[in-house]
């Protein structure tokens, strides 16, 4: 029994030690440091423009799972959904020379990119789908991003657990060729549960970095003053990693 107590005591002490470290400021900055090393290592290995693999049509998931927000709880959204989003507007603004306001027709008339990619959820599952839309770089170049911009923030129509959904990426991912503003999934307009009418595809990161129900694209110099300051809904509310390529 003595040995058992010793082991239980050691395990308890270990768990308490882990919790203490995780709660401390030093612990948090150690986690942030490790996360940043992964980002640096990935960028060094893959380069800024390294592409994720693309799949063939027969590899597409039979059902593309909807997770997190699967609708927008507002009368405006219901009305838009009913009329095929003919009045939906996407703003491109912030640190840009010429702010843009685009409707769905404008977006569909831009040069399009279609890519069959794998979506990896932070929970562990993966689904493959074919996404179509203009590259984000096209919109950013049209608006003329100012040199002081360091991040692109995505504004969304949905709220989750009482907070507005939003996300952000750095300029490397913003100008990545596979970063697109998708309005189609598998050749059809985006289904409601997958973010109709617009969702971002940030292919080198996990699913929570791909915001749905997109209403705005904003160039900013710092994330500190936006919502909770950590760069996204999951980051602010639940402590998720801002770099989700791990």
């Amino acid at each position, binding site marked *: 029994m003595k040995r058992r107590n010793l082991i239980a005591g050691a*395990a308890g002490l*270990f*768990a308490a030690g*882990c*919790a203490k470290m*995780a709660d401390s400021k030093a612990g948090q900055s*150690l*986690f942030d440091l*490790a*996360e940043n*090393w*992964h*980002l640096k290592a*990935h960028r060094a*290995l*893959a*380069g800024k423009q*390294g*592409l*994720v*693999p693309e*799949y063939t049509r027969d*590899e597409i*998931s039979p*059902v593309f*799972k909807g997770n997190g927000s699967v609708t927008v709880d507002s009368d405006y959204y219901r009305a838009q959904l009913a009329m095929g989003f003919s009045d939906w507007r996407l703003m491109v603004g912030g640190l840009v020379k010429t702010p843009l306001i685009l409707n769905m027709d404008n977006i569909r008339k831009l040069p399009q990119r279609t890519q069959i990619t*794998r979506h*990896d*959820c*932070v*929970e*562990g*599952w*993966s*689904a*493959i789908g074919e996404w179509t839309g203009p590259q984000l770089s096209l919109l950013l170049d049209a608006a003329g991003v100012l040199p002081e911009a360091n991040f692109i923030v995505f504004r969304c129509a949905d709220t989750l657990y009482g907070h507005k959904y939003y996300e952000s990426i750095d300029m490397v991912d913003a100008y990545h060729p596979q970063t697109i503003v998708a309005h189609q999934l598998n050749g059809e307009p985006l289904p409601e549960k997958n973010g109709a009418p617009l969702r971002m595809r940030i*292919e*080198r*990161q*996990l699913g929570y970095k791909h915001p749905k129900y997109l209403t705005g694209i904003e160039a900013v110099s710092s994330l500190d003053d936006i919502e909770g300051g950590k760069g996204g809904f*999951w980051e602010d509310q*639940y*402590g*998720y*990693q801002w*770099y*989700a*390529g*791990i």
Partner: protein
Amino acid sequence: MKPKHSLITRIWHWLNALCVIVLFMSGLGISNAHRYLYWGNKGSEPSEAWTAVMRFPDWATIPGHYNLALSRDWHILMAWPFAIALMIMWAAMLVNGHFWRDLHTSISEWKPAAIWHDVVEHLKLNFEHEGAKHNFLQKLAYGLVFGVFLPIMVFSGMAISPGIEPAAPWLVEAFGGRQSARSIHFLAAWGLFAFFAIHIVLVLLSGPVKQIRDMITGGQQ
């Protein structure tokens, strides 16, 4: 006199033990976020899964309650010392001769009669073996852990990371797809757990105080 365990072996042993324990327990927390495992590249529905694993209880996970973000923080942090220390240990073993002397097996050792003799001696709890530092079963166990299970944990973990894939799509393909890599990551983790359990039992049966002291101070040949 040369110690039984070299300094680098001792440092690596305890650092690796800490890393593996934190990675294993935070990994169980991550597993609780989605308890289905798949083969191939995709899988998101229970109907596509080859197995559903149990929900691991709070006492077995880091942190001690469901928190995917914090489990991932621990996993992301400890992956660094785990992988780097393994790489350094491999290089040191090849250079200082530990691998060739104590872990490397020759064809002649793979004789069924000799292996059977080792098994019987283990079951009799007789751990004396003259000459070589390790008997065949020990070499096999340590060889599998060093050469197969620990590297598989590193490489399958890298294959699961979407940010690595543009640099090494062949790595994901080598595992048979991202979900296969995730399944193999999970299975290899339990393979390591099996080694850990046997390792602890054998240490307890073969004079734990001396064994642990030797792995701290070095001991004598």
